């Protein structure tokens, strides 16, 4: 029989997360700090709106690009949060999670041989999606001494004649790093000068603990060369609803919609109705969840300080990224040993790129009680390791 598989997909390495998932799954009583989704349930009024839409029989396809009402709410949200204008009819596309937007954004914009600059550590999808779109990923290894922010110098060094897109993954999973206005202005200058585009993945936009999130689209000259990606998963604890969106120049959104139309048809109708309610009346829910995350974030930073574990202070998402280099182990070795000896699951930084080596991703989408037990165990573990050294 002939080989039934595509060489491109076979050559893409499986996710590092997956590998660790299998080890953790075997341990029944382990505490996990390895989850990249909120621990809160979707707020009831949002769920209720989804249920109501089902009761009303709203069980048909929506238009390809999404419910008009939802696109209008998305456009309103970006106006009030970033003071930018997006025409709901032409500049907004509702997708199946932010993940779909990443995929079809690349496919709509990239030609074979184009280069996509991907700062790492970052979410696991960018690199494989760029490869699947026929492009060449160019990795920038972000540095702990810059608090894992992207600098203009690093960007300039990575740009070639073939560079088409820069992925801007902030607030960042797994580091929790953010980019502030001054950081973005420097990046924007390079982007405009070198005439490239930006895919700004802002799925954690609502979860920042310093100033309010600033999107690169709010910087003059950037909206016309940026695909902004966001969604409902993190802000409203709606991961399972699979709903995200892309906003951008209408020429790009038009081609993305074409792919979306042929591959997906439309995002889930029930989720879209629920999302309208989320954007209309969900601000207080976000505030409440954010307050809880921030308390946990402070708790973890204090726990690291007390056990002498180095960690820069992250101001975004719900992750901390402590450094474990002092123990002379790889991230994977550390995480595996920690899991076996203390039954706490974390994710090795390397699951998010080579530059995650020497770091661990710890999620604080867990109750304080769980985090307290886990930090007690981490303290025991590092104390033991230091004694062994």
């Amino acid at each position, binding site marked *: 029989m002939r080989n039934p598989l595509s060489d491109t997909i076979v050559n893409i390495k499986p996710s590092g997360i997956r590998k660790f*998932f299998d080890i953790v799954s075997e341990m029944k009583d382990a505490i996990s700090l390895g989850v990249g989704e909120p621990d809160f349930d979707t707020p009831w009024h949002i769920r209720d709106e989804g249920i109501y839409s089902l009761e009303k029989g709203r069980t048909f396809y929506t238009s390809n690009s999404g419910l008009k009402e939802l696109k209008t709410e998305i456009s309103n949200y970006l106006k009030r949060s970033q003071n930018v204008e997006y025409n709901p009819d032409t500049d907004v596309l509702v997708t199946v999670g932010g993940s779909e937007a990443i995929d079809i954004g690349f496919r709509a914009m990239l030609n074979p041989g184009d280069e996509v600059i991907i700062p790492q550590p970052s979410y696991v999808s960018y690199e494989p999606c760029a490869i699947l779109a026929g492009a060449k990923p160019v990795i920038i290894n972000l540095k702990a001494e810059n608090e894992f922010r992207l600098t203009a110098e690093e960007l300039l060094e990575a740009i070639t004649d073939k560079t088409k897109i820069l992925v801007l993954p902030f607030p960042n999973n797994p580091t929790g790093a953010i980019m502030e206005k001054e950081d973005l202005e420097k990046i924007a200058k390079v982007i405009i000068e070198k005439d490239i585009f930006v895919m700004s993945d802002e799925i954690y936009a609502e979860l920042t603990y310093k100033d309010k999130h600033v999107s690169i689209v709010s910087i003059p000259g950037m909206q016309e060369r940026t695909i902004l990606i966001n969604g409902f998963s993190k802000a409203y604890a709606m991961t399972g609803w699979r709903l995200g969106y892309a906003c951008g120049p209408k020429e790009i959104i038009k081609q993305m919609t074409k792919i979306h139309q042929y591959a997906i048809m439309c995002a889930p109708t029930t989720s879209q109705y629920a999302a309208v309610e989320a954007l209309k009346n969900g601000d207080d829910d976000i505030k409440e969840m954010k307050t809880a995350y921030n308390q946990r974030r402070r708790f973890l930073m204090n726990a690291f300080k007390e056990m002498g574990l180095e960690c820069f202070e992250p101001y975004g998402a719900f992750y901390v990224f402590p450094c474990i280099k002092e123990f002379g182990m790889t991230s994977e070795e550390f995480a595996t040993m920690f899991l076996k000896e203390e039954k706490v699951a974390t*994710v090795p930084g390397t699951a998010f790129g080579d530059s995650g080596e020497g770091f661990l991703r710890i999620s604080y989408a867990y109750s304080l009680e769980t985090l307290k037990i886990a930090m007690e165990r981490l303290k025991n573990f590092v104390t033991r390791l230091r004694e062994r050294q």
Partner: protein
Amino acid sequence: MRDELLAIIEKNSRIDTKELAVLLGVEEIDIINELAKLQDEGIICGFHTLINWEKTDIEKVTALIEVRVTPQRGQGFDNIAERIYKYPEVRAVYLISGGFDLLVILEEKSLKEIANFVSDKLSTLDSVLSTATHFILKKYKDHGIMFSEKYEDKREVITP
């Protein structure tokens, strides 16, 4: 800081000042001072424990009593409310808008004791026009805490 502090201790009054300082990102001394102020101002009125009595062997009957009263000149409802809330078996008294005036929450050991309270003490007050007593059969949720549900993490153990 005040609002967030109150929100935390409303749910967990046993949390210590050191931990509160960490969670709120302030100094412990600020927490101690703020808590003292909140007590002085009568904003913090007690540190109670939420107990699901149904799970114990102790018999308790709780009743909600709707009371219609004649307000008194110059005093409104305050005087009559005071007459009622002075009884130690009365757990709470609220002035309510709508079809009746005062909502009285009463906790006793038996139905009979509640009946006695209503007939002997409450109904005999001059300003009380009528009462309607409702007994609580089961508590599903109290003070924002669901009694029957236990939190279970339904998420996958590791996700990107």
